[in-house]
């Protein structure tokens, strides 16, 4: 007598589910008769048979199968509700070796995450999406799902789903099969043994397509939720085979895997140094060492700056320039723009904070140390937030002299006029910076710092316009024109 084990616990599962809290480590957490268990078994078997455990990533969705990573002996990742195909895209693009299986339910894929899913399908990502359709929201206690059948009673449709008010069940497999990119779309059911074996074949095919990098494969699996539907095992199978299959006909909707070439993408860059260079290119050599600190007293405290005007006047880039100058002199800098949806013509302002310490909030809504205004409405709006002894610089070509208390330091420069004379209104911000340099030299900077401001400006302008040399020259001209034209009021 000899005994050969024909079918036993698939090797794709852990021997003991040690990740599962509590006393039970051999069983899954699903209710008796749940379709998830059957599908998990099919998947675990396929993963073990294909020998892909070391490369497989199973994405656990939100839903009953949120704990899928307890069970599978491969990589697992939990993602926000419905975002599995998007995360799968990232996993795949970053490391094309990954075999990504996105396991999703009808709330996750059919409702909140439908756009994530359909976009990934349309891009033809190399994903295997297993869509478990049980016509109800199981985890939350049996509410109506997009796939709930007409007339089906759920907690939130006690009178039965009404087509008039709630529409028809969502036919996900049909919808995705009309797209060009997906290679394999099939609908299977976990009901009778015959159907389960067909589902097994479909799931294995979808996973095989992913291993072969054929592209997007999806299997919609009609599964039972006997507890929420209040059916026993037999009734559950009947419900799937007669009721659900009426709206969700079983069968293969698309299979082009044989005719497709493997998906090819631009290869990812994994060298940290090159990634840093690509994301943060060094455009300009900083004129000082990393531990340089400007000695002037003014820089000891955090300085809050507000720049306001019309969109298109260069308000935001002026703030950006100041922040860049701070960055080039080893300050911690924040730059926070605020503007309407229109790119030109609306009002815009930005908050800049320079500090030797960590910047807390990037918002400047009071105690402003330096206010730069380029139009009248901004002057009216922001003058009240200027701190005692604060500095106000305004464009006197369009703004009337403001009435301010004597403790404020006020400078005016005909920025727009000068910029127009130099050729373009957009140089007004460099004119203002020229004016700022004079204010700083007159009132705050000490010793070497007086010369350092101009140097910093030139470094910053090269940093901002590194690829436009003519612009750099004109900006520097505007800067020195601003220096001469500024007047203390």
């Amino acid at each position, binding site marked *: 007598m000899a005994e050969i084990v024909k079918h036993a616990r698939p090797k794709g599962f852990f021997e003991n589910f040690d990740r599962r809290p509590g006393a039970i480590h051999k069983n*899954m957490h699903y209710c008796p008769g749940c379709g998830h268990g059957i599908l998990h078994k099919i998947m675990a078997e396929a993963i073990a048979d294909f020998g892909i455990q070391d490369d497989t990533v199973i994405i656990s969705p939100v839903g009953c199968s949120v704990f899928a990573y307890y069970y599978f002996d491969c990589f697992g990742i939990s993602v926000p509700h419905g975002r599995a195909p998007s995360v799968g895209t990232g996993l795949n693009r970053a490391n094309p070796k990954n075999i990504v299986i996105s396991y999703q339910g009808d709330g996750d894929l059919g409702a909140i995450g439908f756009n994530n899913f359909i976009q990934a399908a349309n891009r033809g990502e190399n994903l295997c999406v297993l869509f478990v359709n049980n016509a109800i929201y199981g985890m939350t206690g049996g509410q109506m799902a997009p796939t709930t059948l007409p007339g089906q009673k759920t907690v939130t449709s006690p009178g039965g789903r009404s087509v008039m008010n709630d529409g028809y069940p969502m036919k996900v497999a049909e919808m995705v099969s009309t797209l060009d990119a997906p290679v394999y779309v099939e609908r299977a059911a976990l009901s009778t043994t015959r159907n389960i074996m067909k589902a097994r074949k479909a799931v294995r095919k979808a996973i095989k397509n992913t291993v072969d990098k054929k592209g997007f494969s999806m299997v919609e699996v009609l599964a039972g939720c006997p507890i929420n539907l209040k059916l026993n095992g037999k009734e559950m199978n009947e419900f799937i085979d007669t009721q659900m299959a009426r709206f969700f006909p079983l069968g293969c909707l698309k299979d082009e895997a044989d005719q497709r070439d493997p998906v090819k993408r631009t290869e990812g860059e994994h060298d940290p140094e090159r990634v840093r260079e690509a994301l943060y290119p060094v455009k300009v050599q900083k004129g000082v060492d990393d531990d340089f600190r400007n000695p002037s007293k003014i820089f000891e405290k955090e300085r809050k700056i507000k720049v306001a005007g019309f969109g298109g006047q260069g308000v935001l880039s002026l703030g950006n320039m100041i922040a860049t100058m701070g960055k080039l002199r080893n300050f911690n800098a924040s730059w926070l723009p605020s503007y309407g949806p229109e790119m030109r013509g609306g009002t815009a302002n930005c908050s800049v904070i320079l500090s030797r310490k960590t910047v807390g909030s990037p918002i400047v809504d009071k105690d402003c140390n330096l206010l730069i205004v380029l139009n009248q409405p901004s002057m009216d709006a922001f003058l009240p937030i200027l701190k005692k002894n604060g500095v106000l610089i305004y464009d006197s070509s369009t703004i009337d002299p403001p009435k301010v208390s004597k403790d404020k330091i006020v400078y005016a420069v005909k920025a727009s006029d000068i910029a127009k004379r130099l050729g373009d209104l957009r140089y007004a911000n460099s004119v203002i910076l020229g004016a700022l340099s004079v204010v700083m030299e007159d009132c705050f900077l000490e010793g070497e710092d007086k010369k350092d401001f101009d140097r910093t400006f030139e470094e910053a302008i090269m940093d901002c316009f590194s690829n436009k040399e003519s612009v750099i020259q004109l900006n520097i001209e505007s800067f020195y024109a601003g220096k001469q034209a500024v007047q203390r009021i």
Partner: protein
Amino acid sequence: MNKNKIKKKFKVIIEPDECKGCERCVNACPKSVLKMSAKLNFMGLPYAYYTGDGCIGCSACFYNCPEPGAVTIVEITEED
């Protein structure tokens, strides 16, 4: 029918403490050789058991069972 052909023998092993008593295997078995117990397992649920004879090794119970390791199907070969 070829009488010389050795008839394969199979048996089903059901782990009582891994079974949740959903009866899917009992319903799926074409030979009706699985039954539900009157006793309860450590989770307090009834469990399926093999009556001891008649399994044809079709694996219907294995694929119908939602639990990973509750059902094991073993082929018994008789050696001369």
